[in-house]
């Protein structure tokens, strides 16, 4: 049982990891066909993995409703939104879920209507709220306590003013300074970070392939 639940997955990871590296360097048609096939497999498994997240979310809110925890009514709202949208998903403009997705604009199709006027509205609003909090945080906490912090502050101000039209009104050098900051020191730092992260990613990938890193298997019961 330990072989099936612990050792076999590590062997699977090793085999597919070696395939993944090998097919990059082998130009033979068989290797390229294998790459194509494995990419399709990845996509299919990816689609199923979403169902895990779906179950987790719905189960979390269901438990809150079942146990009548404080604020359980809001979890019921999740089911209201989910149920309403799923009605249109399943209805699919009369074609049902086992047919290609229906066409139609928001005026013609409840599914598009909910997407445009509920999901898009709420999603972009949630992220735009951060603008207010960033402004508040910048005022209260962004202090030039050290020379490094002052450097960060100056760079932020130059970029903020240089990348919008008002910068050119303040001085013609402001946009030029912003451009230089982004294309030289910022580029250097980001490249250094990218190189470091890449080396770390390679090391972690090798550890996964060789079975040293097994956290993705999860712990607990065999």
């Amino acid at each position: 049982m330990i072989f099936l639940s612990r050792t076999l997955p590590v062997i699977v990871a090793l085999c597919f990891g070696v395939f993944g590296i090998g097919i990059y360097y082998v130009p033979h048609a068989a290797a390229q066909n294998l790459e194509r096939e494995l990419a399709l497999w990845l996509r299919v498994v990816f689609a199923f993995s979403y169902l895990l997240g779906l179950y987790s979310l719905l189960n979390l809110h269901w438990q809150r409703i079942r146990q009548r925890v404080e604020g359980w009514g809001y979890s019921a709202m999740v089911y209201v939104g989910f149920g309403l949208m799923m009605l249109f998903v399943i209805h699919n403009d009369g074609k049902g879920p086992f047919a290609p997705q229906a066409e139609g604009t928001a005026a013609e199709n409840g599914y598009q209507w909910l997407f445009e006027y509920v999901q898009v509205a709420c999603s972009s609003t949630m992220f735009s709220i951060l603008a207010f909090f960033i402004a508040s945080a910048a005022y209260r906490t962004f202090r030039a306590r050290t020379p490094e912090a002052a450097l960060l502050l100056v760079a932020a101000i130059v970029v903020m003013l240089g990348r919008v039209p008002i910068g050119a009104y303040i001085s013609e050098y402001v946009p030029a300074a912003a451009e230089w900051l982004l294309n030289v020191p910022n580029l250097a730092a980001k490249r250094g970070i990218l190189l470091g992260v890449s080396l770390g990613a390679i090391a972690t990938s090798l550890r996964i392939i060789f079975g040293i890193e097994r956290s993705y298997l999860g712990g607990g019961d065999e």
Partner: protein
Amino acid sequence: MTRDTYVFLGLVLLFAVVNGVLLANGVLAADWEGLGVIVAAGLTLALYSFLYKDNPLFKVAENIFVGVATAYIFSQNWYQTIYGEVFVRLSALGGEDSVSGDWWLLAPTVLGLLMLTRFSRRFGWLSRLSFAFFVGLGAGLTIPRTISSFILAQIEPMLQPLSWSIEGFNLLVILIGVVAVLVYFFFSVEHTGVVGKVSRVGIWFLMISFGASFGYTIMARLSLLIGRVTFLLDDWLGIM
């Protein structure tokens, strides 16, 4: 009822009156699109009410959004892949529309279904095979491409001949910056002496980079705010 409750009820009433006026004046059409704009404006304002204080309106809007978004993303996965590719191709197996390679589609389908056993106490170990495939193949695909795209392709432009020009100066600054940042992140050696000084230079470059990122982040969030305010002022109130 508290003062805040009166304030929120008053705002809801005001919202209803404003919409009535907009519909009566023809600014909003009395059709599905008009109703959509009203619903979107209502949800937007309900979410923005969080800026005053956390309140039930905000929580209702937030949770409805979560439900709708979840179902939407499910529908995209279903129609495009689970039904559109897996179901259609597997149900044609053995028939005249069948393609010989389609039998291989059973493998990822089984792996995908095994993934769902994650929630079972007894059979949860089966999901490890799916995760092992996914993670192992992903790791294998990552390594050569990371070397090529992120290491070799990034080092090459730095190793250009320097010249007595602005471009040459910039190239020198970039070279110094990259080396200094890499030295800063090398924690296996104590940052004292020469290493400490180079590491300090790396910190300066990082501070400039974080400052630039901070400036751009503010720009991004404000852009989203501009978009929502444009919607409220133009699409809803029609005063822009």
